């Protein structure tokens, strides 16, 4: 026997599905609100511009902020040429052959590797084998490698979304394949590529595990002066003050978390801005 009519079942289903979808928003809001609520009081000019004092319990987190900015730039430098190059190959040159399948398989696997494994790989490869030492160079390369799958897949998608007609027309006036890519495909794909790079960076830069053995320092009295120096970095700093320093004021921990959160959120925000500006401008 039917307890509910079809119409009543429909209403219940709509209600449940809407509820479940709304639940997804709650943790995000709670995390952001909690960190803002507990961390806001720690944020001050001193907190952002001074090095830590008194066993990290006072002063600021400037060296960690600077280190994270340096690592972001280093990661970009490492990931952009490789990522865009691979994406161009896959989208424009790759035939359906063993090499292409191998490359695609490698990228899928790269995306699935746990971040701690990247950290250990970076230690073995860049720190020890290439003898870069625990350094900004080794950390940037490790993070860059980790960012590659996102950069490649978004860049490939952006390149493929450039209308085929542009390529055809370009060939029809006598342009070479490279000229077509350089002058028609890449300029039109660029906003999408940039968005992908920024999103990839914002993911990578919040990671602790990959920088654990490759670059991050617990505390440094001086700022880094070359790519072969270690640096402090926000995620690692947060990890250390949360687990390794007894008697750490809670608001300093939340303040650090807030700065890291704002850093990645603002990167995501910039990426979203670029993407929507691109959508408005696009006329094909």
């Amino acid at each position, binding site marked *: 026997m039917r307890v509910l009519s079809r119409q009543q079942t429909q209403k219940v289903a709509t209600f449940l599905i809407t509820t479940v979808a709304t639940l997804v928003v709650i943790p995000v809001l709670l995390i952001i609100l909690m960190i803002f609520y507990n961390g806001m009081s720690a944020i001050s000019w001193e907190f952002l511009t001074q090095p830590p004092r008194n066993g990290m319990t006072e002063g600021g987190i400037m060296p960690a902020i600077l280190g994270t900015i340096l690592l972001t730039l280093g990661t970009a430098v490492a990931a952009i040429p490789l990522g865009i190059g691979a994406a161009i190959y896959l989208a424009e040159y790759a035939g359906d052959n063993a090499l292409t399948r191998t490359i695609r398989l490698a990228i899928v696997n790269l995306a699935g590797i746990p971040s701690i494994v990247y950290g250990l790989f970076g230690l073995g490869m860049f720190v020890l084998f290439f003898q870069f030492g625990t350094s900004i160079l080794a950390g940037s390369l490790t993070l860059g490698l980790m960012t590659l799958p996102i950069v490649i897949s978004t860049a490939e998608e952006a390149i493929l979304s450039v209308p085929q*007609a542009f390529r055809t*027309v370009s060939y*029809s006036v*006598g342009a070479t394949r490279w000229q077509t890519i350089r002058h028609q495909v890449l300029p039109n794909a660029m906003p999408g590529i940039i968005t992908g790079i920024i999103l990839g960076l914002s993911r990578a830069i919040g990671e602790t595990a990959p920088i654990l053995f490759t670059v991050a320092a617990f505390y440094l009295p001086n700022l880094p002066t070359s790519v072969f120096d270690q640096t402090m970095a926000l995620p690692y700093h947060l990890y250390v003050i949360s687990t390794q320093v007894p008697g750490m004021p809670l608001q300093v921990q939340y303040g650090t978390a807030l700065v890291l959160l704002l850093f990645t959120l603002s990167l995501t925000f910039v990426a979203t801005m670029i993407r929507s500006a691109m959508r408005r401008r696009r006329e094909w």
Partner: protein
Amino acid sequence: MDNKLEIQNFSFYYGQFQALINLNLPIRRNQITALIGPSGCGKSTFLRALNRMNDTIKGARAEGQVLLDGKNIYDPDVDVVQLRQRVGMVFQRPNPFPQSIYNNVAYGPRVLGLAGGNGRLDEIVEQSLRDAALWEDVKDRLEGPAQALNPGQQQRLCIARTIAVKPEVVLMDEPCSALDPVATLKIEELMQQLAADYTIVIVTHSMEQAARASHWTGFFWLGELVEYGRTPDLFTNPEKELTEAYITGRQG
């Protein structure tokens, strides 16, 4: 009669499917040749075979010869990129690049390095736009977006872009199918002027257009060239029954 292109025993395959069957015809220099026939008869495939735009399609294969000034364009030593400069193409839908009017026309000369300095490039752009009967419409907004033009103007811009690299042959693949009658007439007038300097081959599904605007007509049916001749002869006094049936609308 002087032949710019000479097609000899030409067949074209997409994998197992034979799209063109043993074609033989001339394309006369500085004349307009129209290719007519129902959809899927191979006329567009044939047009694209003339500047090897089909090359990139997987499994595509050509047999026989297409002689451009006596030289087979399917010879292994032919540079496809150079061939496409000599044999340009205008497409079915107006498809300007999402850039300025000036940059659209300047694109070909730039990638080919035809203009020494920028002054020379300005000249090429102006001349191409004049030749495409678009200069008066756009001379005050060369830096404006090409997408702001109406479809007829966009198609003339595409013609300007094609002739800016000084091709010898211009292929047109149903260039008026997206245009209204007024814009269509403008393109047809333009073709008459261009024929003085270029050899033109146009694919059209409009028999009126072929009859109005061409000197020679080829009628395609299921991958074969059924009949080829002077346009007035073919339309008033066709030799083959199939041709007559098609142009009078009884078949097709």
